Each structure stands twice: as C-alpha cells, then as structure tokens.
C-alpha cells in the first residue's frame, strides 16, 4: 500500500502567490562611475556606456547602461544604517558574509517547513536601458509557486520571485524572475 504524501502546496503557501512587497527606491542614482565599475567587472567594453559622441549618434541618443545593472542597486545599504557586514559576524563568527539581514522591499517568507534552498533558474525581460541619472524603484512579488514531486517521492516547491524595476518616470526598465527550489 502506498502512503499518501502530504502536499507542500498548502492553502497558506498558495495564498502567497501574488503577494507583493513595498515599492522601494534604491539608494543613489545610476551614475557613470557605477557603470564603469560594473561594465569592467562584467567585461563589456561597449562604447555606448562611455563614449558620449558615439552614443549621441546611436538609436538611443545618449549613453546607456547595462540593462540589469540596476538589479544590483536594490541591495545597496543606505549610509547611516547599521553596518550589515559587522552585524553578520557579530551574529555568527562563521557567517557566510551575507548574514540574516533584512533587505528593503523583501517579501514575507513562504510558510513552509521545507528549508533547503536551491537555485532553480532566472528569467530576464528587458524593455529600456537605464540612463545616467535615473532614480530606480523596484518591487518584489511572488509570481508563481508550484509543487513538484522528487525522485524520492517527496514533494518540493518551486518559488518564483519577480522583481520589476522602474525609472523615475515610472517606465519599466526590466523584469527579473528568480526561481528557487525548496526541499
């Protein structure tokens, strides 16, 4: 006789689909220095990022920046807030360097006792290159939660968190989706 496995997709978990965080403004603006550091680190020497004359004559008419560069601005800690690195090691001397720090705009946790987290994949949708001087806003949302059954017969969840990024004119720059497996 096979044992009935309890579903991980409980009503409480299902209720999280569509839950959004607050709209948060990233600290600072998109600037040339951040663009320089980012593009050198990703190894993209595109003159659209630094040659104003070339950029002016392009379709875009101005310098652009890498499309998902703004997604990393969302984890910036504004000056004046507690030092998260020091705090992480105060909490745990063997911290992984990230710690358990509350991030602005973070979503409430999905109420599940499945604790192991694995990266399941990413999606990117691009609509506009961020411009120098842009002020960035973002919002997280649980866009999907699905249940699957592993080879061991145990259910697990695939949780997709969608983040939308806007500029100061409320134009969508990009949408990212990060899916994680919870076992």
């Amino acid at each position: 006789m096979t044992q009935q496995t309890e579903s991980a997709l409980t009503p409480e978990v299902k209720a999280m689909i569509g839950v959004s965080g607050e709209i948060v403004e990233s600290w600072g603006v998109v600037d040339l220095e951040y663009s320089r550091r980012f593009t050198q680190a990703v190894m993209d020497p595109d003159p659209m990022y630094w040659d104003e004359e070339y950029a002016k004559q392009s379709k875009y008419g101005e310098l652009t920046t890498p499309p998902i560069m703004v997604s990393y601005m969302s984890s910036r800690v504004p000056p004046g807030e507690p030092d998260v690195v020091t705090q992480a090691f105060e909490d745990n001397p063997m911290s992984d360097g990230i710690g358990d720090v509350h991030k602005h705009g973070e979503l409430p946790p999905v109420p599940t006792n499945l604790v192991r987290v694995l990266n399941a994949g990413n999606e990117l949708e691009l609509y506009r290159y961020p411009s120098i001087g842009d002020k960035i806003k973002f919002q997280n949302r649980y866009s999907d939660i699905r249940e699957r059954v592993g080879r061991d017969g145990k259910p697990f969840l695939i949780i997709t968190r969608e983040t939308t990024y806007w500029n100061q004119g409320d134009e969508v720059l990009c949408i990212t989706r990060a899916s994680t497996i919870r076992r």
Partner: protein
Amino acid sequence: MSASLEDLLNMEPEEIWKRNERPTPDQIRSKQQIYYEDIEEGLELPKYIYKPTPTHLFRWSAAIENFHRIHYDLDFGLNHDKNPSILVHGSWKQSVVPQFLKDWVAPTGWPWKARFEHRAMLVPGDVLIMWGIVTGKEEKSGMGIVELDIGMKTHDGVESMPGSATVVLPLRNGPPIPYPFVAPIS
C-alpha cells in the same frame, strides 16, 4: 573564421581562449546590422570566451557589493561549504547574457528575453564558452522575432547554464524596432 561550438570543445583550453570573439570597442562601433532575413535556424552566434581568475571574481563581488564568502574566501569555500574552490558568481553569468545578446542584435535590434538555469559550479581555471544558436524565427508586428538556445559551457563540455532567449531583429525593409521596447502582439 568563427569556430563552431563542437569544434571548440575538441580544442585544448589555451586554443579555445585564442578563439574568443568578444568584440572590442572599435568592432562594436563598426558593427553592421544583422537583419531578420539574414539568419536561419542553426546559425551559431560568436562565442564569448572567459578565463575567470580569483581577481576577476573579487572585482565582480566588489562591483555589485556581494559579500558572500564562497566567491573570494578560499578557506571558507573549501572547509565550510565544502566547495572545490571559490565559485564563479551566478550573478556574473546572468549579466553576461544580456551583453551577449545585445552585441549580436546591435546597433538597432533588441535583446528582449532570456531564461536559464544554473547547474554546475564554475571555478577559476575553467575556460568558459558563452554560446548561442538560432532555433527558430517568426515575423510579428513588423519585427523579426528570433529564438535561441543559449548556455555557458566549460572547456570540458559541462553545460553550466542551459537556457533560451528571444531577441528582436529589424526586417530589412521594415520599421525600426520600438524603443522603449514594446512586445509584439501575439
């Protein structure tokens, strides 16, 4: 001449590195537009080759303010997380994807969408091949919609980031691709 992905995977790592097709600023400036009519299924995109070192990983961590020790603290990576070395960031791989697509459709096409998984741990010493191949094309709303399979393989053939992408190329006698980009009506 551009080597196929299959050919690259039969080469030694140093030989693969010599076949890097990441464009220089001057090559980007002088790039001619590829039109929808120019491409066909099976066409391979130029291969972007990377040889990440610990310093590259540190530079990326600093640029995006990612303090996770698995990317720069070898002792932590080996002894705490039991990883084979410090690890190449998934966020770096993710950020290469739009660059790779943008460069191919430039100067007027649009790198619309991509989706991919992170499967293998990449470490300094790996030679990485960012690749793409055309799997389909369709004309919609006056735009050339092109479907691609994409990925990032190690020199020994391990696929670390299987995925797909959708880019938009202009038609030879068609209207400009709208900017900001507006998705075609299905």
